[in-house]
């Protein structure tokens, strides 16, 4: 994976779309740009996307955006650099986040790379953070040698969108070709650095250069496009190879379908449910609905506000975030009473003779497992249940019945299920449950959700009547227990 950092909080206002792509950000803390408000906003976003936070101190020169070198009194310089870092520290503390690194900005960055005096002065001003925050600096610079000698922890930074001179200084912005604005230039530049630890300088020679992190200027022309392309080029493949990573496909003009392995297994289901929970917890405004099924999630989004690629990248990032343990919702096991009497179990005898089992053996096999709810579909309140005993796998009826009663419990193929309302159906019917599986008047019309379990409990005709009456009088509570 490519480690990408961006300078942020500089008033461009694109942090919200930027954050999902980057690993670290350098936050303007009052020197060249940034104020309390922007720092709060950017720190909150960085925390949300688990992006490393860096302080980005500068010469105090908002007018020139910190891009002009300044000669300052040493005491004053130290005070001003420390003040900027403290500004950010205070805000970061309020968000219960941490600063990871410091990166000098603009002219200061260039000065400390070239001038021993300025480099030492800068190191003096941040010496109290040594061991606490890392330092972003260019490879083979003046500050690198000093910092290493004085035991600062350094991170080698390369600009993904800037050309270098033979001495590894940046080509001045005043010259032509200082900035790489075309993606066709950026990718070979980054590839060479990443794969061969070399940079092709403006003169065309390849020079050794180490890189731990790549900076992309978020305010340059095509910046977002460059970042998206870098992500696709360098990171997509490694994401695809991750375990449990779904495939992404467009589904219509405003849908993105995420599909996991084509299996109805608990492992796949839990991957689906966990990711669904992550997406819901993240509360992304452009996502209108997340429809869960056995091995897929369909994300419906507002296509007027976000394009599919950006949404996909955002979801990919979400997948990589470490999730809070607290977020996983508890799973319940619901006791569903079923009367397997002949009056309801209209296919019991036929199945018995087919399968060479007694009716009571069928009931035993059917009530033994805890079935897992994989999803709800087909009809409102119809649960797809997994876990039917192989001995009960059976073909559907050759001619479907025009009417299967509400509450009918059936088997068909490798599945078992309950008809939530009277409807046509082709399953073999074993019994009937007096419960309501779909109640429109309730905020949550179904008592069970995907991931929960259903346990069928055999009841007599008398109990069936008693429970039915209790339900219609409103004094029946479905038995349930929390599972794990």
């Amino acid at each position, binding site marked *: 994976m490519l480690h990408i950092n961006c300078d942020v909080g500089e008033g461009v206002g694109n942090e919200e779309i930027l954050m999902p792509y980057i690993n670290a950000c350098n936050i303007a803390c009052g020197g060249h740009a940034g104020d309390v408000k922007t720092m709060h906003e950017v720190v909150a976003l960085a925390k949300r996307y688990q992006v490393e936070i860096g302080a980005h101190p500068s010469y105090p020169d908002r007018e020139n955006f910190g891009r002009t070198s300044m000669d300052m009194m040493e005491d004053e310089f130290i005070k001003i650099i420390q003040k900027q870092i403290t500004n950010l520290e205070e805000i970061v503390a309020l968000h219960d986040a941490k600063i990871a690194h410091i990166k000098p900005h603009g002219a200061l960055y260039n000065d400390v790379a070239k001038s021993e005096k300025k480099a030492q002065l800068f190191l003096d001003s941040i010496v109290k953070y040594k061991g606490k925050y890392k330092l972003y600096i260019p490879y083979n610079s003046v500050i690198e040698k000093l910092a290493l000698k004085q035991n600062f922890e350094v991170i080698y930074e390369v600009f993904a969108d800037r050309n270098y001179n033979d001495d590894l200084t940046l080509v001045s912005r005043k010259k032509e070709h200082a900035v790489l604005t075309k993606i066709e230039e950026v990718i070979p530049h980054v590839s060479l650095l990443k794969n061969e630890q070399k940079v092709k300088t403006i003169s065309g020679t390849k020079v050794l250069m180490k890189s731990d992190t790549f900076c992309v200027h978020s305010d340059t022309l095509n910046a977002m496009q460059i970042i998206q392309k870098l992500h696709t080029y360098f990171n997509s493949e490694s994401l695809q190879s991750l375990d449990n990573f779904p495939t992404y496909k467009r589904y219509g003009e405003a849908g993105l379908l995420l599909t996991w392995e084509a299996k109805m297994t608990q492992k796949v289901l839990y991957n689906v449910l966990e990711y669904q929970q992550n997406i819901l917890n993240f509360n992304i405004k452009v996502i209108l609905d997340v*429809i869960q*099924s056995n091995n897929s999630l369909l994300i419906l989004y507002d296509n007027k506000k976000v394009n599919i690629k950006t949404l996909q990248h955002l979801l990919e990032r979400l997948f990589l975030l470490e999730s809070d343990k607290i977020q996983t919702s508890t799973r319940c096991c619901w006791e569903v009473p079923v009367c397997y009497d002949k009056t309801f179990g209209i296919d019991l005898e036929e199945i018995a003779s087919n399968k060479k089992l007694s009716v009571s053996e069928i009931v035993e096999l059917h009530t033994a497992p805890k079935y897992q709810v994989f999803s709800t*579909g*087909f*009809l*409102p309140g119809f649960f797809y249940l997994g876990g039917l005993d192989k001995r009960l796998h059976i073909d559907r009826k050759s001619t479907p019945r025009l009417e299967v009663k509400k509450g009918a419990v059936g088997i068909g193929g490798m599945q078992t299920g309950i008809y939530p309302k009277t409807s046509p159906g082709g399953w073999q019917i074993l019994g009937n449950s007096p419960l309501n599986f779909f109640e429109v008047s309730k905020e949550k*019309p179904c008592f069970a959700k995907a991931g929960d379990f259903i346990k069928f409990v055999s009841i007599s005709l008398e109990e069936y009547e008693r429970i039915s009456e209790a339900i219609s009088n409103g004094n029946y509570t479905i038995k349930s227990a929390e599972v794990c």
Partner: protein
Amino acid sequence: MLEILHSGLYTSVQDLGRFHHRNFGVPVAGVMDDYHAKLANHILGNEENDAVLEMTLQGAAVCFHKETQIAICGADLSATLNNQPMRLNASVKVSKGDTLTFGKRKYGVRTYLAIKNGFQTEIVLKSRSFYDGITPKIRVDKGDFIPYQVSLRPIETKSNIALQKEIFKSKEIDVYEGPEFDFLSKQQQEILFKSTFSIGLNNRMAYQLEEMLKNSCPSIITSAVLPGTIQLTPSGKLIILMKDCQTTGGYPRILQLNQKSIIRLAQKHTRDQIQFKKLST
């Protein structure tokens, strides 16, 4: 109250649909032709989501028991107010006792009767759209009374809204590749985009196509489907799901209509012809 004197062929109350309950297996439902339903509401200054009456092929006959304004948009089913021809796509004032009837179908399939502030039938799971097992009724019947608010302040609309003829005329149905489009061979893909298909059995749930597409595509693990999804059954039937479709399905989803084409299809009748045009992604 609006009194239903005659129900027409298939008349139901619909708003834009029932979203956010699909994870309970509840279909979206809602108006088949969003464009004309929204247009009728806009003409009256209503909210887009206000409930309208959707009429199919043969309109209903209704009597207004309170003064209000109405607008009719969509198919031309020869609407007459008190036996006088009524303008489409315009706000029309109605008085107590006025009757609205429909006659010969001139073009289109579905027409929308919007009323000032919308019909006030019961909201179930955040929508008024009729659906079996969700709302008390599936369609309106003779003798039903549908509530609406009295509205005394008449709005005069002088503006003329140009009829979007291509909605009714165009054969072109724009589609994206569906999630299982790759299941099809090059030859099958070619057939899909080079042939003309004709509409077979159709209702609010789905439009079947007469022509078959031979295939040996495997089923998929049940997954979400949407209005506008084209499923291919093992026997080769092409089924275009519409607003009342189930939330999930196990047939390969080979194509997906865009919003505009769902609207066009909603105005197509049995034996009408369509051609698929692929949208680039």
